[in-house]
């Protein structure tokens, strides 16, 4: 579903991402781990066509993210770390706007379908500015999956959510992955969430990919470490 070949991004002399080569398989849930400033958001920005790589290539569904950016955008959904949406508009009005931009047909019935799946129908006609953080995050997910994307990018999707909100978000992602076969690529700090939801992980530090494999294989490679947290620090420590 997603392949990157020596992908890199430089801002002047500063290298944000360097020689990133990885593959994310179809229907997998890929957790992209790294400390603040490691290059996770820059990577997502390149893959979602928001910024141009300065070196290397990336393909989504076989399309080049630079040359075929419009086709790539049809395949992906994106939820940034902080979503505010249009506060003066209702959930339905926000979703109608994003659905139309994505070229979704029968938009109103699709919105109803998505909101029902997210158990949000009750609040659909309330203005976004009256929602809690967790509710906004759910509408954020709704806008990202409205056009049934093949690949969903999430930047810290559970950041700032309470335990109930975090669980609700995890349930939604698992449902999307199981029922729609959506491939998920998520940046996260929460290692506990990664173990519960991800099938594959990648660890990035200072712009360089330190490891990328299935969670199972990575855990087997470090039999002495008792948790993903220990594995994560081991990998970062070993490689640095």
């Amino acid at each position, binding site marked *: 579903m997603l392949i990157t070949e020596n992908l890199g991004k430089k801002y002047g002399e500063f290298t944000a991402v360097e020689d990133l080569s990885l593959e994310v398989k179809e229907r997998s849930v890929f957790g992209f781990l790294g400390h603040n400033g490691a290059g996770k958001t820059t990577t997502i920005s390149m893959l*979602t*066509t*928001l*910024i*141009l790589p300065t070196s290397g290539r990336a393909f989504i569904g076989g399309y080049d993210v630079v040359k075929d950016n*419009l086709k790539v*955008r*049809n395949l*992906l959904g*994106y939820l*940034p*770390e*902080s*979503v*505010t*949406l*249009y506060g*003066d*508009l209702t959930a339905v*009005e926000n979703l109608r*706007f*994003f659905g*139309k*931009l*994505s*070229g979704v047909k029968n938009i109103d019935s699709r919105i109803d379908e998505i909101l029902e799946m997210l158990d949000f129908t009750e609040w659909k006609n309330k203005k976004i500015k009256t929602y809690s953080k967790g509710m906004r995050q759910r509408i954020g997910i709704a*806008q990202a999956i409205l056009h049934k994307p093949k690949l969903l990018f999430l930047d810290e999707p559970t950041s700032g959510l309470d335990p109930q909100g975090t669980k609700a978000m995890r349930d939604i992602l698992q449902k999307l992955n199981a029922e729609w076969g959506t491939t998920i690529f998520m940046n996260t700090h929460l290692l506990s969430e990664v173990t519960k939801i991800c099938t594959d992980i990648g660890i990035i530090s200072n712009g360089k990919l330190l490891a990328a494999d299935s969670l199972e294989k990575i855990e087997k490679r470090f039999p002495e470490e008792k948790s993903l947290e220990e594995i994560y620090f081991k990998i970062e420590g070993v490689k640095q």
Partner: protein
Amino acid sequence: MNGILTLAGKEMKTAFKDNIFIIITGLFVILSVISVYVGSSTKNAEMQAYQDIIQMLKSQGETSFPAPPQIFHLSVLSNIISYVSMIGAVVAIFLGFETFSGERVNGMLKLIAVRPVYRDQIVTGKLLGGGAVIGLLLGVILIFNITLFIVVSGMVPSISELVRLLLFFLLAFAYLMVFYITTMFVSIKTNDSAFGFLLMMIVWITVSFVLPQLADSQRSFAYALSATAQTVTQVPSDTVISKTIELFSPAAQFQNIGKNLLQVVPETANASILSIILQQIGAIFEILIPGIVLLTMSYKSVQKEEVL
């Protein structure tokens, strides 16, 4: 095209759901309506005073009467020139100051940019949306004005007067769009909406008040100098310096053309519309050129990565 219309529709919807925008817009509409009412009443009073004088002269047995005051119908609407120039510009600034910076800060630009739309389409959509709001606003004011003009003054505008009025509103639309485009450009360039708004208020004060005031002061100074030196018998109404200062003020240009179109200037009150346009063509370009330049720069700037 679908994406552009969707973006334009969203701009309209969010504008009309913003309470502050509605208050400023309401103020704009109310003031323009009051200005027509006051203008019509003043002209009616002028005519009434003339009729009273004639009656009085007749009762005194006079047979020769003074000529009636020359009242040009559209001059009743003259106050609207100032309202469009002042408050209309603020409405346009308010409409545009968060178009990019606000959406960048709350992450909405990224959500739009990951959709299958080109970045120049985002600018076009916002331009169309803002233009539709301004056009709608001016359209409502135009209808109110014509209706009130007929009701209060009892005069029905001729075809030629209607064309003048329509041209004035077209010019007002172009003038307000220049402010909207300038604000949109500032919004693309800055991350801080409050700073962008303040900057545009400074631009507004400069082009609407400071420069016209400077030009007026220079004219008065030239008049006083000429009168003192007694070098000329007829003082020119404009000086080269004051005209040069007004070149940098779209507000002054707009007011000058507006006064000619709305029959405030007696010399051009009966002139053909074509001759007014030809006479003011330079001023029209001086209003349009900043808008065209800044719109081109907006399309160019929005392609940069840091815009998102």
